[in-house]
């Protein structure tokens, strides 16, 4: 089946099987391997991307359902000039990643949280990350990075 989809500002045209997931389309058709598959039951959140501006687990969307939509993956988050998104910067500063595998999903979820809650308290951040598993960091520095990013974006009026 044909899927027309805009990914990271580029219009794409893909041939997929009807059972293919959005995560399959991104990884296998477009070779955007920053979107990771860590489970198959929508628990780990490593495959989180933005679909029409909202964070979704791309393993829970059929590729054909994403026809006509606008997707941003971790590869498309930094500016065209390579300038990292404030969330990416905060993750590095706060040592919010170790093995890096959950990181793309965590960053995409973090960005989405600040879209809906620009100044979240710690409890809100922890609750918002319920759908993203990390086995390395104990979440401590991930929560801190999102808080630091929120403060910084608020100060800049982003």
């Amino acid at each position, binding site marked *: 089946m044909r899927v027309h989809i805009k990914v990271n500002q580029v219009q794409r045209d893909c041939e997929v099987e009807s059972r293919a997931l959005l995560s399959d389309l991104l990884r296998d058709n477009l070779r955007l391997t920053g979107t990771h598959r860590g489970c198959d039951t929508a628990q780990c959140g490593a495959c989180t991307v933005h679909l029409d501006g909202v964070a979704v687990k791309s393993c829970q969307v059929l590729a054909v359902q994403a026809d006509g939509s606008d997707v941003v*993956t971790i590869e498309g988050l930094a500016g065209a000039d390579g300038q990292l998104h404030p969330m990416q910067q905060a993750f590095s500063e706060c040592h919010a990643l170790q093995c890096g595998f959950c990181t793309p999903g965590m960053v995409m979820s973090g960005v989405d949280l600040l879209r809906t809650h620009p100044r979240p308290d710690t409890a809100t951040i922890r609750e918002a990350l319920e759908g993203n598993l990390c086995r390395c960091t104990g*979440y401590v520095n991930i929560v801190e990075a999102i808080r630091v990013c929120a403060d910084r974006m608020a100060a800049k009026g982003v």
Partner: protein
Amino acid sequence: MNPNVQKSSVVHIGDSPRRVEDHKFLTGRGQYVDDLDFPSLVYGVPLLSPHAHARIVSIDVSRARQAPGVLCVLTGQDAIDEGLGGFPPLFMPEDMGGPKGYRTSRPVLVADRVRHVGDRVAFVVAETADQARDALDLIEVDYEPLPAVVELSDASAEGAPQIWEGAPGNRCCMVMFGNEAATTDAFAAAAHVTKLELLNNRVSANSIEPRCAIGRYSGVDDTYILYSSLQNPHGARQMLAQAVLKVEEIQLRVVSPDVGGGFGMKADPYPEDAMVLWAARRTGRPVKWVPTRSESIATDNHGRDQKVNAEMALDAEGRILAIRMRSMHSFGAYVMSAAVAPLTFAVRFVPSVYNVPSFHGVNVAFFTNTCPTGPYRGAGRPEATYVCERLIDQAAHELGLNPAELRRRNLIRPDQLPYSTHTGFVYDSGNFPGLLEKALRLSDEESYPLRKGESSNKGLLRGRGIGFFIEQGGIFNDKMTLRFDASGGLTILSGLHSHGQSHATVFAQLVSDWLGVPFASVKYLQGDTDKISFGRGTYAARSSMIGSNALRIAADELIAKGKPIAAFLMNCPKDAVEFKDRLYSGPGGKQIPMTEVAKAAHIKAGPLASFGVGLEASGVWNTDPPNFPNGCHVCEVVIDPETGVVEIESYTAVDDVGRVLNPQICEGQVHGGVAQGIGQALLEQVVYDRETGQLISGSFMDYGMPRADDIPVMKTQLEEVTCKTNPVGVKAVGEAGTIGAPAAVMNAVHDALRAVGVTHLDMPATPLRVWNAIQVAKVRGQS
């Protein structure tokens, strides 16, 4: 490379520069095994046994072979016909002077009898992963189910079904430490004896990147390449080449690229690693295997699974006289990897940081119809710590003493160091009493009664627990190489392997500090048997000590090798040159940086050419004598008796990691370890059905992985009590949290629940278990 580090700047030990690794991971450009692609890549999927124990009567793969896209279907009989060997254990107790045990050899594919749910029976290779999975359903296996045993008490019972004919009573092997007669005498003379029976729950590492692998084969020169998510590529090559494929090691290259967490579970190769290589030879195509999460949980080596009877003898003043333990440890269906390591450490570290005049401990390994167990973060140290710390808290309760006070009376004092345990360790350094007081202060012990009262007023139960531990950081020797290029750039070639531990940052930091090479000019290389001459990978918290001391030796040798070149460049005698403040210095204030000397070492003609080509050196460090990281963790919990929910209100960790190389990274390691320890204490358990051996916790829907809102804010403090047995003075940090946390959390839970009459609870302390225990205690109280 690293935005906050100037190109020319040196980074020092004790700094926390932005990690070298971060940029690629933050922009989605990591290269994990599943991210690799090769022309004409095909996909393989193993058929897993649905039975815990069954005889294979017949296998019919003819329909699967005819299925669309299928290239080959391999079975256990094919493995036998082609002379493939099995996977041996890394070592057994008899290899270290212990009694002889039963050594299994796990086949690549099982031909005759499956021994756990998830045992591999066949391997299907097809053009696409979906086609391979579709074809799996067409394989017809006729199984004759056999009775299965899952739990240690069942496996060790009289008349239990036998899993291996050569291992009567399902006993695999045993280890024993201490002096039985002296311990018996000490118990006879004791004023008080505390007894506990403890279960250490089976858990799964569940790295967020699953194990996966790609095999390639070249018929031109009969060579293989394995790309696999492993912690130890050279070790994998050794086992796969020598024991399984039976080829020369030069015929097999193993690459472990970016690896998304390991925790010991990825320390050694698995049957799938052999399957993709074998299938690549059979099909002439690169073969990729990526499991589902359920397949991972069913087939990844699990951790822990121990049942212990432990006793502590004390005198009238609360001084420990002796500890005795009799323990059973489940190995699952096969002895895999370094399964014997946790078996051993689970005994050897029981005496912990205390003066224990007599000790006797026995740990017997049993086979069960479950997935094999192996080392999991801590590997035996969490089990040992759990035994000792639960005993101390229970004894304190029985004696009417404050648990901290009982510890004070028994801790090994700094003036007693070096201290020899009855289990063969010599602790070189540490300040255990100091750590205890610091942890108590940092966790606001003084105001605890106030908090307890407030909780009580709200109908909540508040408890506090200590988890004190000591462990051994690192095992075996290893090698690090430093190699300059002609432009003065420096490459670290590492026998160790980072899969989250930040080697590319920390090791670069060390050599930058020692040699004065700009941090940004250091490149870190690992994980490829063609690029690194030899190594043993990373597990057992071995990298900081082995890596840094091996690098120190290599750096010193580079300095010495560069000296004559520096003398030539400064036009002075070699003896007049010294390396200080990160520069070669000669007479008259002349100075040359190491990078200039390295460039000169590459000049192809003229007088400098007489010094040879290039500037390179290696260092080797051995973990004998070992180091002993230790820590005191304090946990405070609040339990709602109406729901059984345990909430961790505060968690304090004071860790003696020796010299701190990078504080931010050390703290990150503690955080992650503590979260895994909290997971084991409150949430996690691999559950098999006791009758059928079916895996019940077989997905992330069923297995209790800790989530962000399960983990508290932590207060962490690093104590630098320099290690005396290695020049850099480092201990280790990777396993600290996982070792201290289960004991600290469960001691806190018990402290809270004693108020309502609950005396014993096993991990994980889930709301249901806690609530049930409260109800049982209520009924008991009324009757």
